[in-house]
């Protein structure tokens, strides 16, 4: 097992920059998730770490050793592909044993290791089956088996659950997490599913168009988004943004949104008059008849214990997560109060969060 360190990693395909000056470190034994929308460069980053793609510039260190230009075969990394890439002309046993065969391990030992791995993943009853007849989850386990059988320095997984249906996915998320707890292998996991990322990761890097927008623990990413992109990408429904014009003084206690005074965490930096956005998670919005921040209920979405109420305001649409017993009729005018200490201020132009008492120490990518 080893630490993975990526320094100023850059990849351009001709004019197009797929990964821009990426920097991050995955500590030994950490479960690291790269999260981002389609085409943001997750796979490209992973392929560079694996040695399947050469970076345009930058360095990759594996356990302290510079492997940037090493061949994939020389890196001692295991890769689980999105499509699993199980060899169709081999059965389960041969698939799992394939990496060991390459090392020239004696047959008997391969047999023992494959069986041990299969038991570990609870697929020992499938060993002599052809891979084409396996169900999605079992295929996934075989692919994992092929990865762990070799006990490599690190695991790279590219949307390994992407093709499974939701039910299986939840199960596999739990299994993967459990597997990680048992073997504590350094893992880089790529997904565009925020729930998967939040539930599995020790650390998350949120990527957007080749940039890492934020790097941190799931809680940090959720509570203290570094950019509007991150705030919007994480959470369902995502963070609400109230757009307004104004300025920010260090230490100020509130901002004025069209006459409504909203308390905010004390800013640590100044912003001249300009476009700002106030970010608030749906669960931090309450109905408050006394509030000057008013809007019209547009609709509700019942979720059992809670409901999502959509309110149209002069500053944008706000979704509030409220207890299911609160009555909200469409067309009704309501006042909204926001939970001050959980608010994030964004610069409307750059989309970056303004430093406040609430989000100090957040890492940008």
């Amino acid at each position: 097992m080893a630490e993975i360190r990526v320094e100023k990693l850059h990849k351009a395909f001709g004019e197009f920059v797929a990964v821009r000056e990426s920097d991050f470190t995955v500590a030994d034994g950490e479960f690291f998730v790269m999260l981002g929308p389609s085409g943001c460069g997750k796979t490209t980053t992973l392929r560079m770490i694996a040695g399947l793609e050469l970076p345009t510039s930058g360095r990759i260190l594996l356990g302290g050793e510079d492997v940037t230009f090493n061949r994939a075969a020389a890196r001692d990394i295991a890769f689980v592909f999105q499509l699993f890439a199980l060899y169709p002309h081999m059965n389960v046993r041969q698939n799992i044993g394939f990496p060991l065969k390459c090392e020239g391990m004696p047959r008997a030992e391969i047999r023992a290791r494959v069986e041990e791995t299969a038991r570990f993943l609870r697929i020992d009853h499938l060993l002599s089956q052809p891979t084409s007849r396996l169900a999605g989850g079992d295929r996934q386990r075989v692919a994992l088996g092929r990865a762990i059988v070799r006990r490599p320095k690190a695991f790279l997984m590219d949307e390994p659950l992407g093709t499974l249906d939701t039910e299986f996915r939840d199960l596999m998320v739990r299994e993967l997490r459990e597997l990680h707890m048992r073997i504590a292998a350094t893992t880089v996991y790529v997904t565009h599913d925020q729930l998967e990322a939040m539930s599995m990761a020790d650390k998350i890097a949120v990527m957007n168009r080749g940039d890492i927008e934020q790097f941190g623990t799931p809680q940090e990413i959720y509570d203290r988004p570094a950019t509007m992109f991150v705030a919007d990408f994480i959470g369902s429904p995502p963070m609400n943004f109230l757009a307004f014009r104004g300025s920010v003084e260090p230490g100020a206690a509130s901002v004025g949104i069209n006459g409504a005074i909203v308390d905010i965490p004390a800013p640590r930096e100044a912003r001249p008059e300009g476009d700002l956005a106030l970010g608030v998670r749906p669960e931090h919005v309450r109905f408050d008849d006394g509030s000057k921040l008013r809007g019209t209920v547009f609709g509700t979405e019942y979720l059992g214990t809670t409901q999502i109420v959509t309110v149209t305001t002069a500053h944008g649409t706000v979704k509030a997560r409220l207890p299911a017993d609160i009555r909200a009729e469409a067309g009704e005018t309501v006042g909204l109060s926001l939970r001050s200490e959980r608010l994030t201020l964004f610069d409307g132009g750059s989309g970056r969060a303004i430093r406040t008492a609430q989000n100090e120490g957040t890492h940008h990518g």
Partner: protein
Amino acid sequence: MSKTTAHSVVAPTPTARRVSGAIVILYALITMIPLAWIVMTSFKTPPDSIAYPPKVLFEPSLEGYCNLFTTRSRQTPEYLESLPAPEPGCDAIVRSRNMVIAGPSNVIPRFTNSIIIAFGSTFLAVFLGTITAYAFSRFKVPFADDILFFILSTRFMPPIAVAIPIFLMYRAIGLSDTHLGMILLYTAVNVSLAVWLLKGFIDEIPREYEEAAMIDGYSRLHAFVKVVLPQAATGIAATAIFCLIFAWNEYAFAVLLTSGTAQTMPPFIPFIIGEGGQDWPAVAAATTLFLIPIFVFTILLRKHLLRGITFGAVRK
């Protein structure tokens, strides 16, 4: 109440199925008639083979095969009388036509030539085609599209259009009537087809397979052999059949460039002459035997073709 019968939207109705089945069988029968006629002719006697009206029922004879494998000379009745009684088989058949066997014919060397040249060139074309197709499929080849088009363009005209230059060239460099010359020629003609066919097949194999193998410690060559080749087997088999059929049946170049040492069956067969003209049963016998290897080869590979190695382990 209107009566409705449930039937699938996509599956053909039983009537359609029966009609199409009948058409296929009819077509098969029609195409089989010449083949069947050739096989029948090979078992006729020369007079039966040219009888008019044609004989469908006849007494089978091995005379065609005997004549194919031997050269014979006509003898005077006195000389024949003086010989010991013929051994049953070809000896007896030939004797009954007042002839004796003078020696073996050229059919076995010609057949051997056909096998060497057709299989040799097929192997070469498929081998070169596979590695070329792999390179075009997986690597960034500069001007790949232009090169591929150029490769295809070699098939735009019938190969025989360049027969005269090739004839002169081969004579000049001493490749005329050699096995090597014919193998190279057929390989050159087939390789473009092989590249194009195989590129399609290899493009279909997800790169992830080799990449997985390379991450697992295999070199690219090793991954190619262990992972790509088995999955391209279907395509390789299909390509091999096409190449073999061309090289096996090729006539024009063979007539032009071979006369002795390297002569293949196609130019040999039409010149099997019997007494007083074409020896049709012997020609038919040669043709029948000539059909067998390619028939066997196709049957052998057919299993492979039909097995249809599935790409099922990769979900799209």
